[in-house]
């Protein structure tokens, strides 16, 4: 008898669309955000400036404030609508159950996942669809998106939405959070890409087609 392979629909069509729409939209938001940030680049860590001048000149980010604002206040609608649709859909479809950590032990498990990924542990903790580190990261990134939208609107209309600006620590503090979240996305992006490369083609394929073949038992980690 021929061996059978089990194929699963891992990522639902709508989820894949939300994910892949978000990618270029977030890219344009970050890029246009940098065009805006250039006009008042107030932040630094110790002596290290965000960003050194060569960054602006290399990526041609300087003297483009008006263009940046026009782009930012256009793509903000795609970002917010796509993000809201994603969150609503994860609840309607029930996918949220795999994405949201279900207990505090997720943090302990996530630590083990990190140790495993660094080669310090031999075994992964038991997991459902996503491991604990993924659950925490994917939930956090959604909360970060909500944070970007809230602080974004606080900066966008600090008088009409004065309560929102107050809620986010005031106009300038909201700007700092908004910027920090953006740096957070860039860090997430680096780790995310590294993990996707590590997980290999089969995993990437599932984010494109939705389907993933069940791996042979000995290669269960993605």
């Amino acid at each position, binding site marked *: 008898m021929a061996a059978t392979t089990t194929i699963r629909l891992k990522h639902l069509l709508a989820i894949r669309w939300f994910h892949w729409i978000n990618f270029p939209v977030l890219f344009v938001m970050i890029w246009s955000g940098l065009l*805006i940030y250039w006009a008042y680049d107030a932040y630094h860590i110790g002596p290290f400036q965000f960003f050194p001048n060569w960054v602006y000149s290399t990526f041609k980010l300087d003297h483009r404030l008006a263009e940046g604002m026009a782009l930012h206040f256009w793509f903000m609608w795609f970002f917010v609508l796509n993000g809201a649709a994603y969150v609503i859909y994860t609840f309607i479809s029930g996918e949220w159950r795999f994405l949201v950590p279900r207990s505090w032990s997720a943090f302990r498990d996530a630590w083990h996942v990190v140790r495993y990924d660094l080669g310090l542990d031999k075994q992964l903790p038991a997991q459902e669809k996503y491991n604990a580190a993924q659950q925490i990261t994917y939930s956090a990134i959604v909360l970060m998106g909500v944070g970007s939208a809230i602080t974004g609107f606080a900066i966008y209309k600090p008088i009409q939405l004065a309560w929102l600006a107050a809620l986010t620590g005031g106009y300038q503090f909201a700007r700092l959070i908004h910027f920090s979240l953006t740096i957070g996305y860039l860090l997430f992006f680096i780790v995310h890409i590294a993990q996707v490369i590590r997980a290999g083609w089969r995993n990437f*394929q599932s984010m494109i087609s*939705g389907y993933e073949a069940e791996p042979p038992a000995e290669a269960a980690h993605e």
Partner: protein
Amino acid sequence: MSNWRDRQIDLPENEARGFLKKYTRRSFLVAGAAAVAAVGGYEWVRSRPEENMTPWPQRRVLSLNEKIAHGYLNDKHLAPTYKRTDIRFLKPNGDIGLDDDVDIDSWRLHVQTGAGASPLQLTLADVKSLPQTTQIVKFCCIEGWSTIVEWTGARFSDFTRRYFPPGQQLPPYVYMETPESDYYVGLDMKSALHPQTLLCYEMNGKPLEDEHGAPLRLVIPVKYGIKNIKRIGAIRYTDTRPADYWAEQGYDWFAGL
């Protein structure tokens, strides 16, 4: 609600490979077409003829944003006010239209309330005779910085009540410019009549300095700094959307906060 573990198909090994191949190819084709459409759409928008240095479809988006913001704008939505001790240095950031020294005695405010109306020529004393308001509010530059300043002057709504012909319909816009028309702003009437919009002649308790727009400037906390025109020479009430210096440089015309 489906469990992802139950969304499963069991196929013989060789069929499974074909199945995955088929769906992967199909998805890549759809994704590729979507990417081409998205990039094409983006490039189309960005290459359209510009209206004031911004492609016209993006101007439409700014207009839509303006419609929402203007609809939400309300006299009861006030800029937060601060204490005297919160006042900080205000960088004089723009000097367009401030080239010449101004002689306050010969300076006049030219006011045109309508196409048919005869123009008014007002002195600083005329403006000062209106009820005086002092407010300590945040000044927000479109560049991103902000600072807290105390302003003293006459509410533009009081000014309008005195000088705009009673019984006449207020037009939707106001235009203001420096004496030589070097700098100019267009304002929607709702923002202009906001209770914190001032024709201002004192800053931090002292008469306005030249670099801050002596003898009379606009303070409009519901707008970015670019709309807070310095050294006003003329005010026109108008039915058509007025020109605006920075809007012509690609910025949003409304520039509301």
